[in-house]
């Protein structure tokens, strides 16, 4: 009974000839989606580049308000989560359910740790009056461009955090499916494509870290 259900699940969708075609389509689809993500962040990276060029002193000033230790630790946390995600994919490819579950859980957990640390950083910026708009109380030099810097900081890390939150949700979904024994060595496409998404989030942070924390 259970076997039949698993077999059905692994039949290709009607528009595909076989599972290989289906998996290749899914992989290409995810990569194309990642391109759209790069361009979405790309708009913000452009704003960043232009304003850093126009207001370099303000950006140096802004960087001094960043919590370097927290940023560096978070970078390590996210890299670790990418490692566990890569391991999870490997376990899925080998059809090792227990390992898959373990690594997926650690990935999600590390994602949550990152978000927690980020939330703490946000809170301390708020306490310092460095949130643009009405909470803004900073009155030193470059106040105008510095607001732009912090606007970009919150926009870019915020958009990143939103993506990471979605990522944690997706990985949790994978855990649920893995517990229901939906993945086998022959069929684990969702693990692979969500893995790709997770790694891209890591890549984006790899750039955000030096661009905000390490200016001068």
């Amino acid at each position, binding site marked *: 009974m259970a076997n039949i259900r698993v077999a059905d699940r692994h039949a290709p969708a009607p528009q595909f000839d076989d599972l290989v075609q289906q998996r290749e389509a899914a992989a290409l689809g995810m990569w194309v989606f990642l391109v759209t993500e790069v361009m979405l962040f790309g708009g913000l990276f452009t704003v960043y580049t232009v304003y850093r060029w126009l*207001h370099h*002193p*303000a950006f140096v000033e802004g960087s001094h308000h960043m919590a370097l230790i927290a940023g560096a630790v978070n970078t390590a946390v996210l890299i670790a989560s990418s490692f566990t995600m890569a391991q999870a994919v490997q376990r899925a490819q080998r059809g090792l359910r227990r390992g898959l579950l373990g690594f997926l859980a650690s990935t999600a957990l590390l994602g949550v740790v990152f978000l927690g640390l980020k939330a703490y950083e946000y809170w301390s910026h708020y306490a310092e009056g460095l949130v643009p708009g009405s909470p803004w109380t900073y009155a030193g*030099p470059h*106040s*105008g*461009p510095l607001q732009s810097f912090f606007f970009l900081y919150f926009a870019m890390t915020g958009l990143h955090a939103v993506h990471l939150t979605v990522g944690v949700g997706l990985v949790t979904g994978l855990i649920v499916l893995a517990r229901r024994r939906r993945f086998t060595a022959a069929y684990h496409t969702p693990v692979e494509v969500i893995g790709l998404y997770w790694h891209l989030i890591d890549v984006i942070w790899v750039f955000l870290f030096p661009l905000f924390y390490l200016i001068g």
Partner: protein
Amino acid sequence: MNGQGLGFPLFPPRASVLADRVDTLFFFLLALTGLVTLIVATLVIVFAVRYRRRPGRAIAPSQTAGSTLLELAWTIVPGLLFVVPFVWGARLYVDAAVPPPNALTITAIGKQWMWKFQHQGGQREIDSLHVPLGRPVRLLLTSEDVIHSLYIPAFRMKQDVLPGRYTTVWFQADRTGDFHLFCSEFCGTAHSRMGGQVTVMQPEAYERWLALGASESLASRGSKLFQQLGCNTCHRGDSLQRAPGLVGLYGRPVQLTDGRIVTADEDYLRESIVEPASKIVLGWQPIMPTFKGRVTDDELLQLVAYIRSLEPPAPEPFAPEGQPLFPAERRQGR
């Protein structure tokens, strides 16, 4: 050509040196594209009619796949042809971007929904602009609110006007008369009413017109403001000064602490007043407070006009000969 016989125009009046040059390029493009369009249209019609399907001939007798030679020809030939209008248009554009050194400067502020012009002698006008014939006129433009665009079709001239920044444009009118002046960047409800007239006058008539509205010059008002705001306590120009000297600064390159070299044009002067920390001159401390919100756009223009007017005692080789000092020029005019 201009549709006089029709009772309505088909071609706009020409009233500046640039207008003639732009129109020549326009007619060149019109001839070039008109010819190509005509050839394509003729071929399409001739082929379609001549090779229309006839009974007993269901498919075309020749099923050619193409011709690499032809493809290369109609790739390369247009590519080469396009060099002409590109270079031509670019030359005119660069010429229109760089005003001659002896140009007369008039300031313009766009705001919803009017144009405020001010001549160096302090004469103000709204939605109308009087300019002399045969003399280069440079407009220094800014906006109090949204983006506007100053458009004078008869001069073939258009420049967007931005808040928080100075842009410039110049022209030399070569025909007297009244011409349309529009705002061509959408700016809100009464966008289509934001305009008026440019009046090109004989130089003598222009001088008489200026004399009618003469009041205190921009630079002189700026000078007073400079004292009132206390700028002179730091920018003193002597050994005790805590800020860079301003005499002869205008138009000169300035070395900044971050390694960049910028030219001290009007926009630089403006930025240094409202956002002093963003460009620190090498060798000075960032101690100047911002004057953002403390001076209006009008006053800012006066301060800039004053700093512009501070000529060095000895003539710099840099400063183009005969550059008019506005107060002096006003005296000449009378």
